[in-house]
Structure formats: structure tokens, C-alpha cells
């Protein structure tokens, strides 16, 4: 975006400054992928989770790591494998012989930021253990419920091509993720920088936490209070309505998805240093929010991403 409305930040000026710094730090490591970084922060500030689908080696993990480093708080990385069990994620109750009691040993899920690498390698049962925890913000093991820390942000990655021995996330579970995105190959310029500049991994180590859990919660609240004007609401409504009436889709977006769209558009506006929501925010978010919640009719031969692009293409901006 070459132009932005006047950045007259009156509300939460220091929070905004922190966010600014955090963005700058991540952008320093993840070169030329500002859009993806913005999306990631939007998912975080909208209180949702992020799924990154891309080939190995394009920087999924680097992005996730950079995010978790910058956000501060506790973070955990889980590399999924097919022999992993739900307990490996959630934790286990251990019987302690000395006092004849079960002791809960929290799994890696008990952290502010979880980097769930190659989630499709885990068995469906393990996947759904994580997804349920994401949805509910709590974990129940052996009849005991344990709350997860706040904020709680999951960045999952998935390799769409290497399918052998994997279990792609089922359609019905995908909407646990607020946004689904991909990184894409670097541009020629960026690639050159990657070749010339020091190793990304080493750069990661230079990252300092710019935020902490309290500030993230403050930013989430700030985002939730951003102004969304009637025309933007109209736009959102028209988009959602278009998914419901599209002949090539089995069902349209739910009201919950519409609410998520508004929430994420607000967060995106905050990330972009705006004081109010613009149609651009909606337009940027929608292609990452809608497709994985929509199922095209098998016989229509359509891809839900194409359908969503078509809908945006045909929806006038009020």
C-alpha cells in the first residue's frame, strides 16, 4: 500500500508504537513478505490462529519463529510426526507413587505461541487434540480441565505437496484456523538478498521480544474498538451473502465467519496503522479467511479459492 490515511494515532499510541517495532523486527528477517507478516499479526490481534501452507524451505518456520520471538511470552515449537500421540501435545497425568496421586504434566500446548510444524504429519487423532485445544482455549486430560495461557496463538504449517504418509487436515477442522495463507517463492530481489545477507537463522537470534502477553491483550482490545463504517459493513455483508448464494458452493459462510471477518479486518486495520477499517482490509483478509471455510460442490469442478476470487471480483466496493 503506497498510501495510508493520516496516521494520527490518538488511542493507544504507545501500544501502537510497540506493534510498529514488532512489525519492523519481523520484517527485517522476513524480507519482502510484508503482506504475509501483516496477515499473521492480524490473525494474532483478532485472537485467532494461523495456518501457513507452503513448500518446505520458503520460510514458513522462519516466519513462525520470528513471530514467536518478537511476541515475547512463552513459546513452544512442536514438530509433528506420525507416531505422535495426543498426550505428546496436551500433556499427561502421571501417577505418582509417593503420594498415590495423578500429577498433570503440561504438554507443549501450554504456551503463548505454539509453532505447530507440519501438522499434517500427525495422525488425525493427534491433530484434533490440538485443534480442540485451539478452539476451546483449554485442555481436558483424564477428566481434569486445564486452562491455556492467554494470549494463545497457534501458527501451524502444512506442506500441501508431500502427501505421502500424511493426514491433511479434514475440511471440517480447517475453520479452527482464522486465516490460511501461503508464503510463496521469494522475488528475485529478495532471493538475492537471502543469498547475500547473513543466515536467517542467525538473524533470528538477534530478535528481541517487543511485546508481551499484556500488550498483546491490549492490542487485541484496541483492534476490537476500531471504527467500521456502514459502507464497510455493507461490503462485508455483500461478500458473505455472495458465498451463500453461489451456485458452486455447498454452503455459504456462517454468521460466525462473518464476525471473524469483521474482527480480522479491524486487526488488519490496526496492523496497517489505520484508525478505522477500510474496504482494503476486508479485501485483503477475505481470500485468506473464506476459502478454507467453503466447500465447493464436487461436480462443479471449482476450487474454493477461485470462487472467492471471483466473488471479490464481482462485488462492488460501496
Amino acid at each position: 500500500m503506497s498510501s495510508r490515511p493520516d496516521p494520527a494515532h490518538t488511542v493507544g499510541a504507545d501500544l501502537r508504537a510497540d506493534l510498529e517495532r514488532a512489525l519492523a523486527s519481523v520484517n527485517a528477517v522476513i524480507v519482502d513478505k510484508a503482506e504475509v507478516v501483516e496477515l499473521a499479526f492480524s490473525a494474532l490481534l483478532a485472537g485467532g490462529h494461523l495456518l501457513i501452507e507452503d513448500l518446505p524451505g520458503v520460510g514458513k518456520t522462519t516466519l513462525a519463529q520470528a513471530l514467536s520471538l518478537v511476541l515475547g511470552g512463552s513459546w513452544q515449537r512442536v514438530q509433528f510426526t506420525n507416531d505422535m500421540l495426543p498426550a505428546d501435545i496436551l500433556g499427561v497425568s502421571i501417577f505418582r507413587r509417593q503420594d498415590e496421586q495423578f500429577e498433570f504434566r503440561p504438554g507443549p500446548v501450554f504456551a503463548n505461541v505454539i509453532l505447530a510444524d507440519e501438522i499434517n504429519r500427525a495422525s488425525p487423532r493427534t491433530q484434533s487434540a490440538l485443534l480442540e485445544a485451539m478452539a476451546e482455549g483449554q485442555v481436558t486430560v483424564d477428566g481434569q480441565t486445564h486452562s491455556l495461557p492467554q494470549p494463545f496463538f497457534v501458527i501451524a504449517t502444512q506442506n500441501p505437496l508431500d502427501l505421502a504418509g500424511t493426514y491433511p487436515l479434514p475440511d471440517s477442522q480447517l475453520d479452527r484456523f482464522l486465516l490460511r495463507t501461503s508464503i510463496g517463492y521469494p522475488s528475485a530481489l529478495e532471493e538475492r538478498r537471502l543469498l547475500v545477507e547473513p543466515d536467517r537463522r542467525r538473524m533470528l537470534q538477534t530478535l528481541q521480544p517487543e511485546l508481551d502477553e499484556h500488550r498483546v491483550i491490549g492490542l487485541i482490545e484496541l483492534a476490537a474498538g476500531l471504527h467500521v463504517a456502514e459502507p464497510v459493513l455493507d461490503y462485508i455483508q455483500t461478500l458473505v451473502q455472495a458465498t451463500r448464494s453461489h451456485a458452486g458452493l455447498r454452503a455459504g459462510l456462517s454468521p460466525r465467519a462473518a464476525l471473524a471477518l469483521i474482527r480480522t479486518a479491524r486487526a488488519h486495520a490496526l496492523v496497517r496503522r489505520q484508525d478505522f477499517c477500510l474496504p482494503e482490509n476486508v479485501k485483503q483478509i477475505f481470500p485468506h479467511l473464506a476459502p478454507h471455510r467453503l466447500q465447493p460442490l464436487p461436480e462443479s469442478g471449482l476450487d474454493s479459492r477461485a470462487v472467492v476470487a471471483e466473488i471479490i471480483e464481482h462485488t462492488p466496493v460501496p
Partner: protein
Amino acid sequence: MNSHQAPLRPVAWTIAAFIIAALPHLAAMPAWLAAGIVAACGWRLAAAWRHWSPPPAILRLALTGLAITLIVLAFGGLWGRRTATALLCVMLAAKMMEMFTLRDLRLVASVSFFLIATQFLFSERLLYLGYLAVGSLVATIALVRIQNVEAGETDSAAPGAEVQAIGSAATLLLMSVPVALTLFFLFPRLAQPLWGLPDQVMDGRSGLSDDMSPGSISNLFLDDSPAFRVEFDGPPPPVDQRYWRGPVLWDFDGTTWTRPFFSDTPSRQFVPEGDASLTYTVQLEPHERRWLFTLDYPVRGPEQALITVDHQLLSRHPVTALTRYELVSNPEFIDMPDLPEGARAAALRLPEGRNPRSLALAEELRARHPDHRDLIAAVLSWFRTEEYFYTLSASPLGRHGADEFLFDLRAGYCEYYASAFAILMRAAGIPTRVVTGYQGGLWQAGSDYLLVRQSDAHAWTEVWLEGSGWTRVDPTAAVSPDRIEQGARSVIDGPRHRLDLDWLQTLRNRYDRLQHMWNRWVLGFDHDRQRQFLQKLGLPDLSTERIAALMLLVLTLVTGLVSLFLLRRARPRSTGAVDRAWHAMLRRLQRRGLRKRLEETPLEFAARVEAALPAHGGAFRRLAATYCRIHYGDQAEHEADFIDQAKGFTPRRA
């Protein structure tokens, strides 16, 4: 067209359209019939409001049958325009009782146009232009509302719906004016009617009748409406020469003077033009009789007209529309220097056993004045010196009408005098006939025509004198010179005077001037005028086919222009001044070839503009950002600045 149960609002509009279209018809109907029709409308409205079901078919049929029977009884048959329109109104009112589908509503709404058109058969006065405008607007609104319902409008109670319907109907109607005017001026007019009209169809309206029995003109005196207007080539004749000749009456049966059997015989006499000949044009209001009024004596009239043996000018068909004709009259002509025997007999015939006292007086006069001229002078001076009055409130007369009038009543108006005088003259052996027509007329100050009103109707006599032929004698002039010199108005007494305030009179005269123009340019536009009109445009002597071709050509052109307007790309409807300024700016950019796509946000478009027009892009980007702040943000402080700057933004091609 389906059978929706028509909701209230379209029904109300349709009834309004019908009532407005039928208003003049209702006014001319017997009151009970009009009341019945209005009641039917009221019932229908209530039915739509209360969701009543239609009345049983038997009842509808019975009511309609009853109404038709009553019409037949009231109008004396089904033949005649008033009867026909009354019948149409009744049929529509009956249709109303069963118009429960949209199709019925449409029928009533569209027949309203027809009803409006039929009213013009009775009067085409300027006033009715307003009637046409309002009537067709309401009928169009009704049609729009009916269509709205058919198109599945559910919230017909929405407040904007009516305003929107009125707006679209007004646009539709306004846009039809160019087409209507083109057709009006270029549609080939008929030189002759396609079919004649049976006389029975003419059911009489204000105007001179073809007979005279004292009492029958009197209602005309109160009618201020114009009878005709005259433009002279040169100065108008003096006031006492303005006798407008109408029907000439020879036969008298004791109460009524009528035209004789030979009154349609064409004249064998050739009236030459003389030095004192007058050339003038008469613009005659339709009066549904055949006579055309002339000054004495018409030398030649329009084609299609005939001059009778007693110098009446007769049109071939009843005058049903405003008619213009050009005339030449020679006032110095001597009519019938020799009176044929038959004519003399007809001009002396009197019924047996009537008016004995008058006959006695005539005998006495005849003995005293052997010379006819002396006798006439004596009678006129008698009228003048004795106590005779001119009044419009005269009593009706009995069997010996002339006796009653001359010896007892001694008060009456022109018909009384003309009739009594003619009886006296015939009894005294002087051939006499009665002429009815108009006398006088108002010379409009500032305009160049003479206005003759219905109230100028007059009756006078013509006596045959040796050497001077038929000579006009106006006994009324002897009694009331004012009547002749100042017009009928001067002798009308009673409360009317109070209404005739000066300014009111001025206003009325102004209106008449307007009416005159209206008559001249709109109503009088006929076959000949159309030719003249085209000649003035430099298209002389076009055949009817050519005119039709010209009409099609112009019509195509006009329709093209109208369609350009109607099919123009609509601008997105924006409410505020900010939106207007923004869209105006977008239009200016569009003219430079940069069109904002619908799915583009303002800032995305701004980026594109910046790439295409580097010189202006920066300015536009700032404006777009401000627009976003106002449109999508919650601040409004930049509005005025934005509007100013947006107005100043004029992109030029790089």
C-alpha cells in the same frame, strides 16, 4: 398478468385516475347518476381497505342493468355523445366493482386516457390542458403502481414507494412530450372527415339553436364563454355594423320561428365584391351546428361550405372542433331587389287565430302609413317612446305571445322584440324574416381580434323594401341602444354586476387572449394550418405521404434523443455533497479514460490513477485518502475542504 388480489394503493390511484378523468363527465351528468358512480368508487376503495370480497355477479349485473336503463330513460336513448360517455363511466364504475385483479385495474387506468380524450369532444378550452396533464399523470402513476405490485413489490406501504412512483411516472410522461409534439405537428391531418356524423349524435350544447321561441336564447346571455373570434384585414367595422348572421327564420307557428324547407338551397345570387368589402377570419368555437357566422353579405366562404338563398353560410358537417375560415363580405350588396312570389308568400305568412290585438294594431298602422318605410319608423319610434323595457328576466309567453308582450308585459329581450316586430310587419303586409346570430363583440385592446361571446347572441329582423331589397331592422336597438352599442353585458342586471369588477374583467380578457393563441396555434391546427406550418419551414406542398415520411424521420430523431436521455448510464446514487463531489471527480477521470471499477476501492483506484497520470496522481491520491477518511472513518471535519479541492481537480491527459 396474473390474478393478484389488488392491494389498496394501486386501487386508490386507479380510482383517483378514473375520478379525475371522469370529473367533467360527471358534472354534465344527472346528479343521481354521478352520485351513483362516485358511490361505486367509494365502495371499491373501502373494499380494498377492508379486504371485502367482490359482490355477487348477480348484484353487479343488476346494478349495471339498472344504471343503463336509467341512462336510457334520462337521455332518451343510447345515441349521443353525452349518453355514450355516461355509459362508459357507468361501465367503468361497474368494472370497478369487480376489478379485483391487476388486469382489471390496468384496464380502468388506461381507459381513463380514453375518457380524457372524449371530454375534448365537448370542450377544448385552454383550461383542459391542465385536466389533460393531471389526468394523464395520475393514470400513469396508477399504471406504475400496478406494475410495482406485479413485479412483486411487497412493502407497498414503504414511504418512498409513492414518491418514487410519482417521480418515475412524471419522467415517463415528461419524456413523452417530445414524441407527442412531433406527432402532433407532423401527423398528416385529414382534409375531410373519414365519415360523417349523424346529426343525432349532436346532442346540443350551448350555442345558437336553429329555431327561436322567445325564451330560448336567454340562457345564452348568461354564458360568457366565447362563441368565436374574428381577425380583420384592416379596421373592424363600426359597432352598429357588427351583426353576425346566423340562421334565418321564416316560418312562424304562433310560438316558434323555424328555418323553412328551402333554407339549405344554395344561393343563385352572385354577391360581388364591392369597395366596402371586408376581409376577415373567423375562429369558431365548436357548436355542433352547421352554421358559420358572417357579416352581411358573404361574398365567398371557405371550400366545403355553402351559401344559402338567404345568405347563411353553412358548413357541410356540424362544427365539432375549433374551425377557422376566411371570409369576404360586402355590406353594400342589395339582397333580392325583386322578391319572388314564393318568397313573398313565405315572408308574409302568419298562423291563424293568434295575436288578434297585434293584427288589429297592424291594420291600423297600415291604414295610417301607406309607405312601408314610414310604417317601420312609426313602430320603432313607438317602441322608443312608449314604456318598453329591455330585460333578461322576461316571463314566458302564452298563446297570444305577441299580444301579451306588446300590450301587457312591455318588457323582454331581443327575441321578444324581433318576434313581435316581425308579426306586426307581416300583419301590415311587409315581408319580414327573423335573423338570429350574434351582435357586437369585444374589441380586445392591445390584441387584434374581436371576441364574440355567447352572451352576445342576438335576434333581429329583415324586412323587404322596394328598391333596397332585404333590409336589416333591429327593434331592440330602438328600445335599448345600449344593448347594441355597448354589448349585451351592459343590460345584464342583477348580481352579476358585482362580479364584473374591472380587474376581474381584465384578467378574463387576458385569459381570453391566451385562449385565442391556444385556439389559433393548437386547436386550429388542421389540414390547412399544417400545410402553412410546413410552408413556413420551407417545405412547400408536401403530399400526405411525404408528410408521413417526414414525421417518421423526425420521430426517429426525437426518439433517439429521448432514448439517449433515458438510456444514459446512471450515476451511482449518492446522498451527500461529499459523495457527489467524489463521483463528479470520478466522471472527470473517466473522461480521461480512467474508470473506477466497481470492485476497486478508492485507494486502489488512486494507485492506478497515479500510475497512469503521474502529474495528477498525487493530488488524487490525497483526495482519495481524505474521501476514505470521511466515507469510511468516523470523522467529518474534512468535508468542506474535500469538496472544494475535489471541485478544483481537473485531470488532463499526460
